[in-house]
């Protein structure tokens, strides 16, 4: 087997080999943002369509979707924001975590049409390669991943999780329910339990989050 050219990313390789099928199956980003063309996507005979408008990473989006489309699939397949990952597709792994009106949720367990008027932030909206979000930089610095597949979900989740602590929301790890919760390793582990890392980078993830929390304090 020949190794791919070093300049070829894994995504280029996958996209390249599946290019024809992908072009047939999914509209491009610009097409998807126009409702009429999104409606023309292939679908099962009995599928129902519904319109929805929301903002993603500051940009207004209007879509007409098969009602079965999850927010995760709307982001990835219709808006081509592939930073958000599909892991288990059943709310168990957290790879699809995004922020809706500032709160972290599993994008796989919610329908896109249920988000009329909502403000959605994905990993692409938190930071960019030129301007990393402090959590992105800290994950790099602390080697908070191996394969990286769970990382966008981990970072979106941890950003909202630190906001939850700042808002005074207690956790199962909080000794005193009525006290102001603190950022401790125990709190971080408990609050991040909805994000699974099968490479097992947990201790470095906790270190990365701790560093950012301490800097923000």
């Amino acid at each position, binding site marked *: 087997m020949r190794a791919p050219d070093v300049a070829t990313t894994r995504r280029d390789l996958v996209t390249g080999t599946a290019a024809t099928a992908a072009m047939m199956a999914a509209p491009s980003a610009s097409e998807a943002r126009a409702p009429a063309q999104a409606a023309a996507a292939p679908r099962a005979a009995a599928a129902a369509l519904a319109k929805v408008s929301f903002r993603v990473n500051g940009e207004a989006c209007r879509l007409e979707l098969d009602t079965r489309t999850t927010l995760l699939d709307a982001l990835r397949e219709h808006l081509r924001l592939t930073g958000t990952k599909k892991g288990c597709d059943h709310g168990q792994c957290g790879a699809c975590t995004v922020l809706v009106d500032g709160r972290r949720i599993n994008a796989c367990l919610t*329908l896109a049409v249920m988000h009329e008027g909502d403000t959605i932030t994905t990993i692409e909206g938190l930071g960019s390669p030129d301007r990393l979000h402090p959590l992105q930089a800290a994950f790099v610095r602390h080697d908070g991943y191996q394969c990286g597949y769970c990382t966008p979900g981990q970072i979106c989740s941890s950003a909202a999780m630190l906001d939850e602590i700042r808002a005074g929301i207690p956790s199962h790890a909080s000794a005193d329910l009525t006290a102001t919760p603190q950022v401790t390793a125990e709190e971080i582990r408990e609050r991040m339990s909805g994000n699974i890392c099968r490479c097992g980078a947990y201790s470095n993830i906790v270190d990365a989050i701790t560093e950012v929390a301490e800097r923000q304090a």
Partner: protein
Amino acid sequence: MKPFTYERAASPAEAAAAARRHPDARFIAGGTNLLDLMKLEIETPSHLIDVNGLALDRIEATPDGGLRIGALVRNTDLAADPRIRRDYALLSRALLAGASGQLRNKATTAGNLLQRTRCPYFYDGNMACNKRQPGAGCAALGGVTRQLAVIGHSEACIATNPSDMAVALRALDAVVETVAADGSTRAIPVAEFHRLPGDTPQHETALQPGELITGVTLPPPVGGRQIYRKVRDRASYAFALVSVGAVVQPDGTARVALGGVAARPWRVEAAEPELARGARAAIDAILDGARPTQDNAFKVTLAARTLQAVLAEARS
């Protein structure tokens, strides 16, 4: 997922009317359990009625000094409410012991009560399940039952209800408020909300078709030490093997509800005086009539030891 049509309801009356028009519809709020089951085609509604716009998302004081929790209050917000943390700590603790941060942000009070009573065989379409297909038989009985019920189950079903919140609501004597498809309202004590399987395990609650939960009321605070202790296979984000929700008063009397042992939160008020004779005696009385399997007989001992730990914590 099977195709379905979708509408947003703006009021309980509108939701009820939509339910009358579509007998096969399901209400959807957080969707964290319903959509999971729809993906597996275990739930196959032809129409979804989105009730998120019903303005049932507040926690309000009741005239008698209790609280009324709107059906749409998210689990995170309920657990974090200062009144709940101060006066109904058991409820806050139980909520925080359940699911993950992402799921609690989405899951609602009513949806938590309506999550399916379930077991791995219910989720596996290749296995016989009387809940999925009434009359098909139960592959769990005689299968791997370590996680499953020790009391209240039948020859038709041995699944448990995984809600931690419901265990706390049972100990706190909460009441579920509903509006029926014809517009009439009623109040159902949590004690009567979840049904035991009998020979119709597909019917899990007292709700009638099209009946919508509008809220849950809590009686005035009962004080005491309120403790929720959950024993599970991993430290976080797992269902209970056994959980104990307790309100222990300074005189040693207590309310005790168990999770992880039955198709509903398990509380036997008449057995609670046995607490004076210790945790083991109390559990023997609470779980009187239990029929554990070889796989899950450990749950009876685990329940006694967990209650013992709760009582020790209450005394500390």
